[in-house]
């Protein structure tokens, strides 16, 4: 009788354990204000994917996407090969494309344990029928870089970040 009860309660127990520990693995995170300033170019607005990479350069997470039409996401091939496989819902972290000379400010959220631990942030840019920059901007996340202004190599003139 007692055994039977334990047997019955076992899945419930597992579920409880999962609920308690499953979601608490992620540590505290901080919101950052991030401004992207574009260079003056003509043509369509740029698609920009902002991703978190580990020390080896593997994609960990999509932090923000400028450009809301999924049809064109494959124009950012590196990121697409990561994101395109599973396509998690990114509606909450999607903005509009940024035209030449324009700027966009977005709020991105980065877990605190990714700072000063070798993780990197990458800004990939692509403009329809123009070039694609795999690492328009890429830098290691440290408490210094996260407050500074970083120059871009492609369509981005610079990016500035500011903790909230």
């Amino acid at each position: 009788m007692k055994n039977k009860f334990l047997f019955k309660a076992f899945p419930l127990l597992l579920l409880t354990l999962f609920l308690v520990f499953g979601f608490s693995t992620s540590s505290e995170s901080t919101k950052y204000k991030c401004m992207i300033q574009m260079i003056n170019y003509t043509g369509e607005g740029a698609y920009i994917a902002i991703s978190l990479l580990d020390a080896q350069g593997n994609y960990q997470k999509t932090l923000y996407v400028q450009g809301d039409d999924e049809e064109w996401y494959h124009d950012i091939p590196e990121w697409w090969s990561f994101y395109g496989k599973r396509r998690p819902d990114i509606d909450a972290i999607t903005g509009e494309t940024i035209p030449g000379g324009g700027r966009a400010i977005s709020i991105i959220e980065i877990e605190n344990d990714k700072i000063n631990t070798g993780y990197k942030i990458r800004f990939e840019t692509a403009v329809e029928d123009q070039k694609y920059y795999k690492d328009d901007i890429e830098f290691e996340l440290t408490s210094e870089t996260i407050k500074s202004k970083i120059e871009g190599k492609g369509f981005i003139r610079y990016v500035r970040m500011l903790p909230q």
Partner: protein
Amino acid sequence: MTISIWRYSHLLLAISSSLFLLIASVTGIVLAFEPISDSIKSFHIKGSNDLSVAETIHTLQHHYDEIISFEIDSNNAMIASVITKEGNSETIYVDPTNGGKLGKPIEKATVFKFATNLHRSLFLKSTGRFFVGFVSFILFIIAITGVLLILKRQRSIKRFFFKIEKEYFAQFYHIILGRLLLIPILLIAVTGVYLSLEKFSLLPKSTISHQVSIENSGSTPKIAIKDFDIFKTITLKNVKAIEFPFSDSVEDYFLIKLSDRELIVNQFTGAIISEELYPFVTLASQWSMVLHTGKGNILWSTILLIASCSILFFMYSGFTMTIKRHKKSKLRHSNHNKDESEYIILVGSETGNTFTFATLFANALAAIGKTVFISELNNYSSYRQARHLIIFTSTYGEGEPPTNAKKFEQKFKAIQPINSIQFSVVGLGSLAYPDFCKYALDVNHTLASHPLFTSVLEPYKINNQSFEAFKDWVSIWSSTLKISLHIKQPQKKKKRKNNVFTIIERTPINEDDTFLLRLRTKRTIDFQSGDLFSFSPKEDEIERLYSIGKVNGDILLSIKKHELGICSNYFSKLQKGDTIKAFIKQNSTFHFPNIRKEVIMIANGTGIAPFLGMIASEKNMSNTHLFWGGRTRVSLEIYNDFIKKEQLSSFHTAYSQTQKDKIYVQDLITKEANLISNALKNNGIIMICGSIGMQKEVLHVLETISRKNLNLPLSIFEKKNQIKIDCY
């Protein structure tokens, strides 16, 4: 096929771009609904346009933790990117008067996304964009050639919006809509081209580069944002977007985008650090966008919608016209070449209509075993066996030759004919134009001045492609040359449903071989005096038309019996109670005016029938005059019962056989010149019904009166529909 360079380009461009135009206009129709649906769902707050930027920023900053930027959309609603007090980043519609959140931006509907993509790039990215831009340019050229064609047709810019002769539905509305929607279509085309050019960076650089002035860049004296002078003076009405400083570092600033300029404002002192006007290219881009998409303006989007629909109609009607024209101008291959034919027929035609008659005539000649060669006037050449030359030609513009006759004059001078040739010229045109058949007269003159050419007949003019007039000319021509010709009337494909009519009365045949027939039908048919009674006898099934006089709801016909006339003989034998099958054809161009006007009725012989009905009708007759020409006093007797003299202001008769000097109806008119000119001047109507011969004479007299008494050509009044003709 006869085509001018403009018509040819108009058609060729339309055909070559038709597929793309079809896609663009169908998606254009869909997209026209986007601004309409957007503005219906708009979050615009009434009265917010007049708020100053200072007030607005103050309100917003009170309501939110941070403002990143805001913009005013095309429907004057405010979208702001903010960080809420809870620390969340949101892009939302806000109420500028109190900072409250109104809602989230609605995502563009899938159907509009799809249509936009198809509309601007056919899903082909750059290649597609290029195509669409190019097609837009072609549309522009099509519109321009269309304008040129209308100008040619109307003969001057002043007359661009004058009346168009209606030939058939497609032709009429192609031109009418073309004129009405010219401006929207040109704008769509031009802005479309512009927007494409912009995407291909083919326009001069248009971005503003700000020159930051150092002296205004300091952080003192610091004042509150709501006290910035510049923010107090600008109202939201003029603002497109404002970007807030990224941080409170001195190098960050407010970027204000107004409708015509950009300002950079120091975030501490409110001083203007830089002010740059948008270059023309940027403004033109903005305007192109607004004009092409109709954003923010329901009225304009509706016009764009109509214009897009009209492009579909133009494609349909344009192709209908082309097919019609092609069919008409297709020459029946004559069995003979130019050097073995005795009869040479040459045609000058702009639209191909003239070929119909020329072909009928050629077929009639071929049917009696004559050798016939038919061609265009431009192909004029020498003809080894030719004895007869017959020219059918229309006139283009102000007495100019039609396109396929332009080279005739020159060729005629250069080529020496082999034999002496008898010629005859038939002109086709419309009395509504002052240069009626002018080119035909010129050709006749050219031929007549050549020693080897002899004129058989005076040049003959046909108004509005009257088949009766054409038959009349054929009979004159064939009797002059002592040939018996039978013209086969083209069979109308549509079979009309006949009604049964019962004979109520037939008067005895009088000494002019004329009698009256009164018919009635059980069916309720709406008809008026002046409509036509169409009857086709079993023998040849060719339709005959008789003008109707409506008397007490009955149909009154006046018929002259001809010795060999199948129809008139058949009618003359009908007895009371007999029934015949026929139908009534509307003829609205020969109805009595509905508005009270002076009316002058002119008829000879049986042409009086519709007037008898009009006199008998209830319509006010206080100012109506009747002129009638017959053979003798006795001729009038059968009509006497119907001519209520008290209903007429005056009644004038001419009898050609009663006295030594023949008097005709046109002579009466010459006498009453003042009555005529007054009527014309006072917008009165002149109605003419009877024989073609009489029509010619009467028009001649009217022309003389008009020029002499009013100093105006008669065509002015014809244009104003003051002259109504129904002659046979």
